[in-house]
């Protein structure tokens, strides 16, 4: 019941976050139509997050949970991300891992070493400012670059924004050549799947470049539907809210907008926010999926415990009855002997 209530809240939060994401995507799409993405003279791409490079160093952000007892939620993410990492490693790519949630951190800390950064500070000649640099020394092909143990405690946009800024910095300085998110996508209680989503470079705005790593089995769907029914949670994907419908119209009216600033400048400022919103969205979906998995696991455990109690009660009654019968026989036999 507690998981069902948490699931409802998580689902609601994911829904409430949709209008912002939709509006941001709309503005970006609208700007793309008004901006030259390529420099006319040099032919270079105008924004560093659109530049595609050969994938030599790949960052994989894995979103799991903080707690156990959620059925196969954490282990499914672990297995699926490991398959993805092994596949990339086999292609000769270096992998940086960025696990979110204590379960993912625990898993990868045991398997791979932490990335080593050498911190360098140097005072400028005027003694007023410092030049700060963190130099990376790679010792293994797969390393844990950054951990996020507290991000899931209370998912807030500001923290996600700080994380996204760090990822974008590493992408822009070519420390990494691509970024993937591995998480549990949540549509409804019976429609969840482990997916890997390509976050960077951005190839097409407003679309999720997703590869499915693991789908729910029919049995899992059935168990989830039963648990949802007993907890009073809907198994259907929630309908689009009015705010969401309105959000789709944002920045797309059939009029000639006056742009208060140059579209190129707006585009530059929007791109990092777009990446942040994608991560934020994945975190909210993953949280809803975790609560759904926990609700199903709790329901199955409650049922199993009930069956066990029934079985043990029956055994207890049988043993008690046998003891009483034995005692009566002894008394009756004793009385007959007199």
């Amino acid at each position: 019941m507690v998981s069902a209530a948490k699931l409802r809240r998580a689902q609601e939060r994911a829904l409430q976050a949709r209008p912002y994401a939709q509006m941001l995507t709309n503005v970006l799409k609208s700007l793309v139509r008004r901006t030259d993405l390529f420099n006319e003279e040099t032919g270079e791409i105008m924004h560093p997050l659109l530049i595609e490079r050969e994938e030599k160093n790949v960052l994989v952000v894995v979103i799991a949970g903080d707690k156990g007892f959620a059925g196969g939620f954490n282990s499914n993410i672990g297995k699926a991300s490991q398959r993805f990492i092994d596949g990339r490693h086999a292609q000769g790519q270096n992998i940086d891992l960025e696990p979110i949630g204590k379960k993912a951190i625990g898993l990868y800390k045991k398997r791979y070493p932490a990335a080593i950064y050498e911190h360098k500070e140097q005072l400028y000649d005027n003694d007023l400012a410092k030049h700060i640099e963190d130099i990376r020394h790679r010792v293994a092909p797969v390393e844990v670059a950054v951990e996020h143990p507290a991000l899931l405690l209370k998912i807030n946009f500001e923290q996600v924004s700080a994380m996204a800024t760090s990822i974008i910095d590493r992408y822009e300085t070519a420390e990494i050549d691509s970024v993937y998110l591995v998480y549990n996508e949540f549509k409804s209680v019976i429609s969840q799947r482990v997916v890997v989503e390509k976050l960077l470079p951005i190839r097409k705005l407003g679309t999720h470049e997703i590869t499915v790593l693991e789908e729910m089995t029919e049995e899992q769907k059935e168990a989830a539907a039963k648990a949802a029914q007993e907890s009073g949670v809907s198994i259907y994907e929630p309908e689009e809210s009015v705010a969401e419908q309105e959000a789709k119209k944002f920045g797309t009216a059939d009029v000639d907008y006056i742009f208060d600033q140059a579209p190129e400048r707006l585009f530059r400022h929007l791109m990092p926010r777009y990446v942040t919103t994608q991560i934020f969205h994945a975190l909210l979906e993953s949280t809803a999926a975790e609560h759904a998995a926990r609700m199903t696991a709790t329901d199955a455990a409650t049922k199993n415990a009930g069956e066990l109690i029934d079985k043990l009660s029956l055994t207890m009654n049988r043993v008690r009855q046998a003891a009483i019968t034995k005692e009566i026989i002894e008394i009756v036999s004793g009385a007959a002997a007199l």
Partner: protein
Amino acid sequence: MGELQTNLELLKVRLVTPDRVLLDATSSAVELPSMSGYLEALYGAAPLLAELGAGEVRLHGGSAGEQVFFVAWGFVEVLPERVTILAEIALHPNEIIPAEVEAELRHGQMLWDQAGDNQERYDEANAVTRVAEEKLASAQRKG
């Protein structure tokens, strides 16, 4: 008839943050902190798309009444009958905690000290400081 006309001349205003739709109301005028200075939207305004900086969104009249929100970075779409504000941070001035803002100011100063020869880092430090200063000003105006 006069009242009907007045109702028709109200703007629909919606303030959306990454978390939720914070405000959905009508208003007769909306002041917005655009990157190039404050602008005011009235019913029938020309279609406009603008980036918002740090400052106050002020609503006057309509079902929103007199309301103020502190916003930091966002976008606004102004249409003749509707204003939609997309804000990364939106707070009521009485939700601002001065001690936290002081910490943000110190953080901005630290970023400035560590910016070295990187122009982008100076810009980032300036942005953090500017948001904190505007936040503080908004809290003080309320107080």
